[in-house]
């Protein structure tokens, strides 16, 4: 190897090293991504560009790239969001369930293609099972079928549920759910057992032998997976 080629090698190695040290940091890419978004969308119908402005929760959760937030950050996010929940002045937490079903079914609303005067639904069925009769339900969220039965209907549960619907980040900050799930499962299973009095369980065991017991075990473990507070 002559001196010239050695020098070229050295120079290229230095260049490569320089290129590596100057590659944009994560923060730089984040701010570039935000700027890219602003240039890549146009206001349409009822959807203005302000919808690309994130609030603190959205910013914090986006930066986690799908990972679980550290406990103390999650707690901060939850507290900030819990403070936004406004409970009804008259204290009435239960409303008209038939109207609730309508709102849960309605998928339209807020899209740039939607009539601004048209209905704005909650589209719950997109992600959750709710009533038994609706088979077209999504599975991104936990099943809420027999929610009252599995969670109880005390004032505390009603207040929790109202707040959860009002602002879901008030109780689950991103993937913190997994931690909570671990803690809550035993209690929920206890309340589930409570729903099925021992004498009925004993009777079905007597009548149907092991087959139904096995089916129930399967059902129980499926329920365990489904229920996430």
């Amino acid at each position, binding site marked *: 190897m002559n001196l010239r080629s050695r020098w070229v090698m050295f120079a290229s190695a230095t260049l490569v090293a320089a290129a590596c040290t100057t590659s944009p940091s994560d923060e730089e*890419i984040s701010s570039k991504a935000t700027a890219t978004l602003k240039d890549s969308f146009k206001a349409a119908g009822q959807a203005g560009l302000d919808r690309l402005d994130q609030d603190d929760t959205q910013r914090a959760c*986006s930066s986690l790239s799908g990972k679980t937030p550290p406990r103390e950050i999650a707690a901060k996010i939850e507290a900030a969001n819990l403070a936004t929940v406004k409970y009804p002045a008259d204290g009435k937490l239960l409303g008209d369930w038939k109207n609730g079903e309508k709102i849960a079914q309605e998928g339209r609303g807020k*899209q*740039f293609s939607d009539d601004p005067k048209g209905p704005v639904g909650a589209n719950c069925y997109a992600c959750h099972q709710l009533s038994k009769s609706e*088979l077209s339900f999504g599975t*991104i969220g936990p099943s809420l079928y027999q929610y009252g039965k599995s969670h109880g209907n005390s004032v505390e549960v009603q207040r929790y549920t109202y707040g959860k619907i009002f602002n879901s980040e008030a109780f689950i900050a991103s993937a913190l759910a997994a931690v909570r799930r671990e803690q809550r499962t035993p209690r929920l299973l206890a309340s589930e057992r409570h729903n099925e009095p021992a004498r009925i369980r004993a009777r079905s065991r007597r009548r149907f032998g092991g087959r139904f017991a096995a089916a129930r075990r399967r059902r129980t473990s499926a329920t365990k997976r489904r229920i996430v507070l």
Partner: protein
Amino acid sequence: MNRFAWLAAFAGLACAPLASAQSTTDEIAKYRAALQDGNPAELWEARGEALWKEKRGPKQVSLEACDLGKGPGVVKGAYAELPRYFADADRVMDLETRLVWCMVRLQGYSDADAKKNPFGNGADKRSDLEALTAYVTSESRGVKMSVALVHPKEVEAYRIGEKLFYFRGGTHDFACATCHGENDKRIRLQDLPNLMTTEGAQKAYTTWPAYRVSQGELRTFEWRLYDCFRQQRFPELVYGSDAAIALTTYLAHNANGGVYDGPAIKR
């Protein structure tokens, strides 16, 4: 009623909701299988090939000299390596953006004219870009996805695309990851790919464009992103925008190694 019949009736009753949910899934699976028999996407591919070879635009030339990344006129396998950096444009481009570029540079269309009709309506309003995209992508069928991140702008597009994938915003607080971050999830009855896994990204990315039966229209990847963002309650994604290309780069690169199998047919 004897005891056995009573028991059978009871068992039937107990199983009814489960059985009907099961049969719904089965019926959908059957429907999807039936769709694979004949794919109307071929009509778009044929029209696209004719458009590719036809002398068009103010300059009356064909697109046959268009460089899709593997040299002027090379269509075979080009889509499996897109998006990529193009020195002549000094920009990372996806297929659709590159087609617009060639229509402007080679055929003399204005940028606005070239992309004035990116998506057809399934009836009288047909999109030349959809047809051209169908033709070019069909020429990569059976080719392994191989999107390189070599040029700094390719790396940057990928990294921005990743950020956009996790960007939560809009009235409903949705990010791409909200629906595409877990295995075996669905919206209503529609299965969702988990785009955070290699298998999920490969399965999803290699089957776009696709003929959408429910719309009677061939849909491209730009359309897929556009309509996802509409449902995310975001404003309107601009065709050929940097965000569209960055997200496409992210997903296409994640699908590397998967065998391209489009245009496909979907619900």
